């Protein structure tokens, strides 16, 4: 393998890792706050893509379309949080975890089912960012776009959690819900905000994916599974670990795709998840 190929793979892997980090963070934030493992995450990412392509095509601007996609996903997230998740949050402990899985799984299947009827095509974003070539190393436009979008978003996410009052309140609820309650923090309100934020993150990851390849409705569940694996490997309540795991897995799967092909690369990803679950089962509880 030529050195330039290796560098190109590494750059692709990092871009993929950034997408993984966004997805994993979306799972980790919601699970850490409220013990709900959002199995519908990927479906919302696909909704963002479909709305972005449709609106973008209608008004002739990809950027406007992308914003519209994220807004629609945020509004849907608010509705889901106030209705379905309110019912889930009423139960406690393991009961809530199990209920969360099934309700979001049902939601994912329902959303995918509706989309199969109305938007059964493939969707991609014509972002128009040109690729560049530096010293014999080619970088695709979609990769550049991923770096340009995902890095500020992740930096912004950490800035929000570390430096704003709302972010501090969020971390307080993750660490100690009762303590947060005593300090006058309303956990339910924080959960609503963070759920909406998590869907916007997933929406961004979906849009970035649509910038580099075609997205179909069936990609939704795949994105969800990637997100969960990243979150598990990173430590499902540990946002920094999740982001790092996203980078690591992005590099690993890109290299594996190149060396052993797509099927085995995916099997490898699942094997990593299984190994981590066996090694650290106490992490998710």
């Amino acid at each position: 393998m030529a050195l330039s190929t290796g560098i190109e793979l590494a750059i692709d892997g990092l871009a993929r890792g950034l997408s993984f980090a966004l997805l994993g963070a979306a799972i980790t934030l919601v699970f850490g706050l409220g013990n709900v493992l959002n199995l519908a995450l990927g479906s919302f990412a696909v909704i963002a893509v479909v709305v972005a392509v449709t609106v973008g095509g209608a008004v002739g601007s990809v950027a406007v379309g992308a914003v519209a996609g994220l807004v629609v996903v945020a509004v849907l997230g608010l509705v889901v949080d106030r209705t379905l998740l309110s019912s889930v949050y009423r139960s406690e402990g393991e009961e809530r975890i199990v209920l969360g899985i099934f309700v979001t799984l049902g939601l994912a299947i329902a959303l995918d089912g509706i989309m199969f009827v109305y938007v059964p095509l493939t969707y991609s974003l014509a972002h128009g960012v040109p690729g560049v070539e530096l010293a014999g190393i080619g970088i695709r436009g979609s990769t550049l776009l991923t770096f340009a979008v995902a890095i500020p978003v992740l930096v912004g996410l950490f800035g929000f959690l570390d430096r704003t009052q709302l972010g501090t309140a969020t971390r307080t609820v993750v660490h100690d819900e009762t303590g947060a309650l005593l300090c006058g923090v309303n956990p339910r309100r924080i959960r609503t905000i963070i759920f909406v934020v998590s869907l916007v993150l997933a929406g961004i990851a979906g849009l970035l994916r649509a910038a580099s390849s075609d997205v179909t409705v069936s990609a939704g569940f795949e994105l969800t599974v990637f997100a969960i694996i990243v979150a598990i490997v990173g430590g499902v309540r540990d946002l920094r670990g999740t982001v790092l795991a996203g980078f690591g897995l992005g590099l690993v799967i890109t290299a594996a795709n190149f060396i052993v092909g797509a099927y085995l690369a995916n099997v490898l990803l699942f094997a990593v998840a299984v190994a981590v679950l066996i090694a650290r089962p106490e992490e998710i509880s």
Partner: protein
Amino acid sequence: MITRGDVTRIGALALLLLPLPLLVTAGGGTYQLRIVSLFLVFATLTVALNVAFAHTDQLFLFLGALAGIGTYTTALIADAAGISAWATLPLGALAAGALGATVSYVAARRGMTVIVLAILTLSLQLAAVETFVGAREVTGGSTGFPFDGLSVAPLAAAVGIDERILFTYVLLGVLLTSLVGYAWLRNSRWGAAFDAVRQDPVAAEAAGIDVVRTKVFAGALAAGTVGVVGPLYAQAERYVLPSMFEFQAIDVLVLVMLVLGGSRTLLGPVVGAGAIVLLDEFLGEIGQWRTAALGVLLVVLFLYFRQGIVPKARALYDGYRSDGAASDVSPDG
């Protein structure tokens, strides 16, 4: 020992289902016969999930993978060795059962919670289907291969009835066998151990119950059953396709059937499977909405109807009989 109530229930169900294959084919309808076959296949799968999930809290989300492993083991070994798939069917069951036992063992030893086992088995499920599609040389990839290894044609010719009808009776026999086994199991020491382990593993351990052994037994039994049903399902469809064993094609349906019919009941899985298969038929005209309807059903069931049809019906019946007074806890339906 099987309770007299359960003998009556299984007997009544057998009487109800025995004429079904003949009735639906009276007008020559092989399509209806396929629906009956699907119902019998999924009812048996639901009985298996009932043991693993409802009785011992092991949320197996890899029934599709287990069915696929049972099917590919049965079909591929029969093909390679040049022997009948009936002879390799036990190997398929063994392979699936061994995987189920291993997963249960690791999960119990590592103290995995419901959700960890759920994600673990879901990962195995997705990896399995990925492998079924990817191993093109042996599985035929996503286009699959025709399968007729479990044909009952010689016997059908000897008895003088249609082969497809006879095979439906094989499926019915498997369902009834699984129900008899389940009725025996829940009234045995194992059933008591299941209850103890589910309600309080620590107390169960203190009472001298081997929690790991109990869970491994339940997991192996459920997985082995799925490993038998998989190849029979393939025979009913006359084809082996990776997409038959997908998470959305098997696990989601079986989960809905179990919760709808009623967990930890004898007839709940049969009622749930029947209801969903029938619903699917009614949705036939608006078939494109099938997936969406299943998803909505899953949400509604888990939020508002986790009790299930059979326990609900029993509660109504008991309430009617005792006129609203507190009735004795009757054995499960």
